[in-house]
């Protein structure tokens, strides 16, 4: 199994205080990785660095064997934790935008996702509830045939039914060799969804292991492990 993403020695400071310190990890192709940690742990910063929206102070990022650059941006599908769509756009405008600017956008898939996530295409995005806006962003991100999906808090603010739909999409709608990195602190939702876990606490990786290993060798659920690891951090 090849690595779709490799990070070495990644460090970042904001205003003098370290946000990420000497991070090192990789993501294999075809894996779903849960990036977990409390608020302010550095999850969003890490994802933004992977998307080249922030610059690391130090470190190397390799995407599909090549150093991060313009080409690698095309391999990553980003779902931010805020609404980054222009305020005037309707859902269908956003779909057309993605379709025009991302070569790997699958219009058919976006139609399917709009249906399963109950999204009305003619509504203005800013008129939607927070949870619905998130579903729109999830739909846009997952309609691309990317190598790595970066989802920043995809479940925040979504009701249980919507969450179930998003999880279902993640389980079945991602190609076998594509990977997903989900940043969240809602452990319960992703218990059965993730293959691997990355626990991030204020810039440091506390744990990097597969979910099944945690169950088999620690005899704990992911949630229990999270609580234990972070309460001792």
């Amino acid at each position, binding site marked *: 199994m090849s690595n779709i993403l490799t990070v070495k020695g990644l460090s970042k400071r904001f205003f003098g205080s370290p946000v990420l310190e000497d991070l090192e990890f990789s993501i294999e192709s*075809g*894996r*779903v990785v849960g990036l977990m940690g409390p608020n302010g742990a550095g999850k969003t910063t890490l994802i933004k660095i992977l998307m080249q929206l922030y610059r690391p102070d130090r470190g190397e990022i390799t995407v599909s064997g090549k150093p991060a650059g313009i080409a690698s941006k095309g391999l990553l599908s980003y779902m931010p934790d805020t609404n980054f769509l222009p305020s005037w756009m309707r859902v269908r405008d956003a779909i057309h935008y993605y379709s025009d600017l991302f070569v790997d956008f699958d219009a058919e898939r976006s139609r399917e996702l709009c249906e399963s996530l109950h999204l009305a295409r003619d509504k203005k995005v800013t008129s939607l509830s927070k949870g619905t806006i998130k579903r729109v962003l999830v739909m846009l991100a997952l309609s691309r045939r990317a190598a790595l999906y970066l989802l920043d808090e995809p479940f925040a603010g979504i009701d249980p039914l919507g969450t179930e739909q998003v*999880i*279902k999409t*993640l*389980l*079945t709608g*991602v190609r*076998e060799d594509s990977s997903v990195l989900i940043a969240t602190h809602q452990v319960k939702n992703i*218990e*059965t*969804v*993730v*293959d691997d876990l990355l626990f991030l606490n204020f810039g440091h990786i506390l744990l990097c292991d597969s*979910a*099944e290993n945690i*169950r*088999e060798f620690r*005899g*704990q*659920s*992911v*949630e*229990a492990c999270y609580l234990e690891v972070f309460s001792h951090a």
Partner: protein
Amino acid sequence: MNFNPTIPIYLQIMDQIKRDIVTGILAKGDRIDSVRSLSEKFGVNLNTMQRACSELERQQVIHTQRGVGSFVTEDVDTIAGLKEEMTKVMISEFIKGMKSLGYNDQEILEIIRKAVEL
């Protein structure tokens, strides 16, 4: 399906499938859905499902024919073996539970006899 999150999920899936085979929900030689639809049905991710299926394949509970699909084993002995395995686990857990309540072997037998007669 509801899983116990403290035990490896692929093992629980395997148990469920084995149970279905023993109880006859999945008859011998029956075709099994694709890994993708199974993962959707069970509500787990693809890799977990894949691992369960690979392990079942290794234990010869199911076999895969390239390009055709996966099927439950036709081997009656294997299925009987599954039933035996499951029975053993159930019994030992039952006896353990009863013993923790304070019953001895005689009492346990007596209770079972009475319960079955009713």
